[in-house]
């Protein structure tokens, strides 16, 4: 590297000694954040003291750090509250309130537009149309924010965290509720979503499309009106999440459609109408998950290719597995089924006879939805008994050749 370039790089850095701290307070010399941003230079820190600030849309065009002191409230109204267009902006400890819905533009409390390296941390957003809206952002971190929507109707609320055409984001430890979708990703790549809680949203807890190479770990999606949906994406990793209490007709804890080369591991699906739904997926690995007390544990459409269910736990579901066609290529191995009636004579921890998890009645219901009204009737118990007596009745399209006798299956560490 030539010395000239080094000098040029050094001069780009703001001289450390000249970085200032500006204070915004109602009635002070800088009564608005807008005024402070005018006065600030790149690298400065702006401290917003507690109070309520009602300003026109605030645009951050400089590389600044904005800190709230004593939870200052920035109010919106018929416009966005804050728009970040500069790189490396930090936003911490502010409260954003009241952005009214609009049919024309996607107003948000915080919008990041074409910026890199921003850090939005520990803010509170209440009653806003969209919460945090990222458009063409890169390398941003959205950490520990609490975003609570008005929970009115699907058309009058936006998404809590909305990301469009962005990359390399980290979204961690946020609590999202009462919006349309808790997390929404479209054309967003290489993003990590960790330890968020998305609950009581009007549509999906998480909803993403065309978002490749993203990972979702340790999140909780609870009682969202339409569960969660991941679609049209490659290389998705979903690990250690909890999908709970998604209820209603054709509502699933996690709906996966047209996923390619993805992993769904170590998640918990509990108390949903449908736990996991897979349609048109290719090479998806479903491993070490727990399906507990769902209506349907897993629904795998026959067009799923090269999908594997291994070492999962199926317990207390009305139907463990269901499918819609006979030529299913999904493979099951070493799962634990609480319904497994077989035995393990050689004592290796795996049953000696295969288990066909798709019950006859489940298959009938998949094709004729109204038949569900016979659920838990004596007749259906007889159907189950008949299957046991005459196994030829059980649809054989899916079979676990080596069902585990216990969970966790022997020989794995988890």
């Amino acid at each position, binding site marked *: 590297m030539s010395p000239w370039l080094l000098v040029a790089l050094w001069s780009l850095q703001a001289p450390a000694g000249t970085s200032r701290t500006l204070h915004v307070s109602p009635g002070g010399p800088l009564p608005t954040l807008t005024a402070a941003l005018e006065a600030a230079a790149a690298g400065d820190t702006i401290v917003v003291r507690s109070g309520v600030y009602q300003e026109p849309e605030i645009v951050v065009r400089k590389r600044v750090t904005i800190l709230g002191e004593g939870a200052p409230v920035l109010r919106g109204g018929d416009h966005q509250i804050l728009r970040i267009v500069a790189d490396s902006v930090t936003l911490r400890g502010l409260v954003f309130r009241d952005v009214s819905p609009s049919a024309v533009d996607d107003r948000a409390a915080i919008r990041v537009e074409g910026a890199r390296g921003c850090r939005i941390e520990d803010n509170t957003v209440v009653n806003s149309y969209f919460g945090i809206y990222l458009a063409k952002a890169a390398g941003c971190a959205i950490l520990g924010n609490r975003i609570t929507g008005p929970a009115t109707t699907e058309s009058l609320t936006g998404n809590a965290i909305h990301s469009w055409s962005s990359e390399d984001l980290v979204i961690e430890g946020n609590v999202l509720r009462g919006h349309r979708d808790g997390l929404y990703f479209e054309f967003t790549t290489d993003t990590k979503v960790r330890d968020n809680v998305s609950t009581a949203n009007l549509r999906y807890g998480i909803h993403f499309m065309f978002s490749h190479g993203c990972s979702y770990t340790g999140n909780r999606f609870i009682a969202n009106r339409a569960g969660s949906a991941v679609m049209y994406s490659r290389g998705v990793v979903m690990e250690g999440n909890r999908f709970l209490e998604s209820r209603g007709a054709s509502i699933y804890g996690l709906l996966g459609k047209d996923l390619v080369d993805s992993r769904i591991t170590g998640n918990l699906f509990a108390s949903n*109408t449908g736990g996991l739904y897979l349609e048109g997926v290719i090479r998806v690995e479903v491993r070490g998950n727990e399906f507990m007390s769902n209506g349907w544990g897993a629904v795998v459409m026959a067009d799923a290719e090269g999908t594997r269910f291994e070492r999962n736990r199926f317990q207390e579901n009305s139907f463990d597995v269901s499918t819609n066609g006979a030529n299913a290529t999904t493979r099951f191995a070493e799962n634990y089924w609480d319904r497994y009636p077989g035995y393990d004579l050689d004592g290796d921890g795996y049953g000696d006879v295969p288990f066909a998890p798709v019950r006859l009645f489940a298959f009938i219901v998949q094709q004729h939805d109204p*038949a569900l009204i016979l659920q*838990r009737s004596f007749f259906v118990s007889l159907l189950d008994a008949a299957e046991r007596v005459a196994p030829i009745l059980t649809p054989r399209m899916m079979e676990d050749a080596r069902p585990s006798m216990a969970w966790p299956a022997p020989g794995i560490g988890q």
Partner: protein
Amino acid sequence: MSNAVKVLRYQLRDIVRNRWMLAYGLVLLALTEGLFRLGGDGGRVILSLLNVVLILVPLVALTFGTLYLYNAREFIELLLTQPVGRGAMFAGLWGGLALPLCLILLGGIGLPFLLHVAASPIPTRSLVVLLGTGCLLTAAFTAIAFLIALRFEDRARGFGSALVVWLICAVVYDGMVLLVVTTFRDYPLETPLLTLILLNPLDLGRVLLLLDFDVAALMGYTGAVFKRFLGTSLGIGVGLAALSAWTIVPLWFGLRRFRRRDF
């Protein structure tokens, strides 16, 4: 009317001493208590009891009802020599059977719940629906049993018919419903299905109870339609009327036979 009460009181005393009644009560008690001991909370116990109530209660009411009337033949003949009206007599006989059966049901299932009320929360509404359905089913199937016993002079044929009636209500009917669902899959089936379910007391009882539980959520669109209908006061009224009709209609026919019968 007082004659009816007298007959009823005598019957009550007679039936309470009956060993089968005692066994019935003990079975219910042991079953409910056992389900609690197996670690179920109130809701899950009720759900497990659902099929017991729906299968056992009608079966007991039917078999016990027919046998009871056949065995009471001499007693009836004796009483008819006395100045007792046939209507009062019939009411007393039926009440004297249905009432203790209901009490045993309430006690056998209700007692364990009372014992465990402190340990686990009891979904009161579901329990009321379960016990209410059980009592209505008892009333309905004892009435049907009486009708059968009066229809057939021969005890074996009467007993056989009672079992056939039970089989139809508990199994064959649902098979038929499934057949309807698969045959007419291209049509909107919610309303016909609702009617079909209303027509069978066992199905109606089951659906009423299931709608009270989480499993209702998985019943999809049909479940939603049922819930919307049976959740309204009109729906509850229609459901109750349908269940009561299963008591009133056989009773009425039974009474007619009883009046004309030449003992």
